[in-house]
């Protein structure tokens, strides 16, 4: 399983370095201006793009045909993918926290406290964990090509909903208790979602004919 994780890390970081540099360059104006919106979306963009990269490369090389003959169970093959995807999620969430703290320190125009900003990143990170849990089985089922469309829908859907209900984000950030309650709900939801997602992905992978 470690061998597969090594391969996935290699594939994910193939474009990861350039992606990271581009994002850091893009972030400079947001760090100096103290815009929390962009900072909290870093984990989302990074994790989803890197996860998609892994699936896209496997699809390109028809790797799953070969993975079938390796001395690993289907569960182990899927588990290695989840381990790398959520490892990247953790890394990018921590990156989001670090960047938000730097931003808070550099900028003098921030409207909220450092604590609230970190809490915001953690909350969006948990939301992304749930998104990943939804996306991965769908990519296993429909493949990386169709998966891109699914991701677009999943990313755009909350944006559309937010646009419809138009919540007051600034006041939400000010009310720490509200963010606390969102996170406390999201944390167990994310855990259950990951567990369910893994189970579903293994079932899909087991039944899939990789040669068809």
């Amino acid at each position, binding site marked *: *399983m470690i*061998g*597969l994780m*090594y391969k996935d890390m290699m594939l994910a970081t193939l474009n990861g370095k350039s992606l990271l540099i581009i994002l850091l360059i893009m972030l400079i104006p947001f760090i100096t201006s103290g815009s929390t919106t962009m900072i909290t979306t870093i984990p989302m963009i990074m994790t989803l793009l890197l996860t998609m990269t892994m699936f896209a*490369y496997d699809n390109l*090389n028809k790797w799953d045909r*070969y993975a*079938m003959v390796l*001395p690993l169970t289907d569960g182990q093959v899927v588990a290695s993918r989840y381990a790398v995807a959520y490892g990247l999620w953790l890394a990018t969430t921590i990156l989001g926290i670090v960047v938000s703290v730097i931003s808070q320190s550099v900028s003098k125009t921030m409207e909220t406290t450092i604590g609230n900003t970190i809490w915001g990143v953690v909350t969006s990170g948990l939301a992304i964990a749930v998104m990943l849990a939804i996306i991965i089985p769908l990519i296993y089922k429909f493949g990386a090509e169709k998966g891109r469309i699914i991701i677009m829908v999943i990313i755009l859907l909350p944006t559309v909903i937010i646009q419809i209900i138009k919540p007051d984000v600034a006041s939400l950030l000010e009310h720490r208790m509200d963010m606390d309650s969102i996170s406390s709900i999201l944390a167990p939801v994310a855990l259950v979602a990951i567990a369910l997602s893994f189970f579903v992905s293994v079932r899909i992978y087991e039944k899939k004919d990789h040669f068809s």
Partner: protein
Amino acid sequence: MANCAEVSKLCKRYGDFFLEDVSFAIPEGTVMGLIGENGAGKSTIIRLMLKPSYKDDGKVFLFGQHIGTSVPVAVKDDIGVVFDECYYPDTCNALQMAIIFSNIYTKWDNALFLRLLKRFDVPEKKKMKEMSRGNKMKLSIICAIAHRPRLLVLDEPTSGLDPLVRSAMLDLLQTFMEDERRSILFSSHITVDLERIADHITCIHNGKLRFSEQKDDLLNKYAIFKGTRQQFEQVGSEDFINIRYDRYGVEALCKNKEEAAKKYPQLTQDKVTIDDILSHSVGNKSYQESEIL
């Protein structure tokens, strides 16, 4: 002699293709050549052996063990597989592939891997996407051998390769077979390769088993008989597997050359090749060229 692998009455339907009741065994220490035209079902058999849950019916045995729906990890650890294409990530090089496999196979032998890379001139640090098809296939076989498997499964690894690379690959397989406990299942329609290294030949045609015999028996028992149309007017078609007529005369494949030679002394006997047996067994049945052209 124990069987390294065995399939019994294997069945699988893919659209209008039907693999029907295919049975054969690969004795330990031997090379089994799997022949047949494109689309005959060779790759399907290999897939069903490696992933028995795909089969509709039949049984698969590996190292004497009946395999249910999935091949146990310990059994897979003893099998090396090479497909007709290299499915390794094209951004990886040979050394990175070794890191991946050394963390997957329990018996991965990195020293052997490096020795084989050098012996067969496979670049260590060149990315897969920059390698020639020949080098990719050599690397695939080296990786399949470097974890010291007991069974090597090759699904048309030599197709599309030039004779020099094919020869190097066959050398590699002969090196592998120096240990007599090992076996190879080698699917190919390049029968010259099989003539060089196979001990047994299994022929598949349209999803059905045509024959599964020892190569030497095939080459000793079978023969090509040639003669004029007049000479062939006196022969019984039941004595031959297939009869072909062309503008120069008639050619027929027979299964029992000694009997046929006694019965038809007027015909000329030629040594048979696996290619002759394959083309007569699965090619167009008895026909006259004038009927086609």
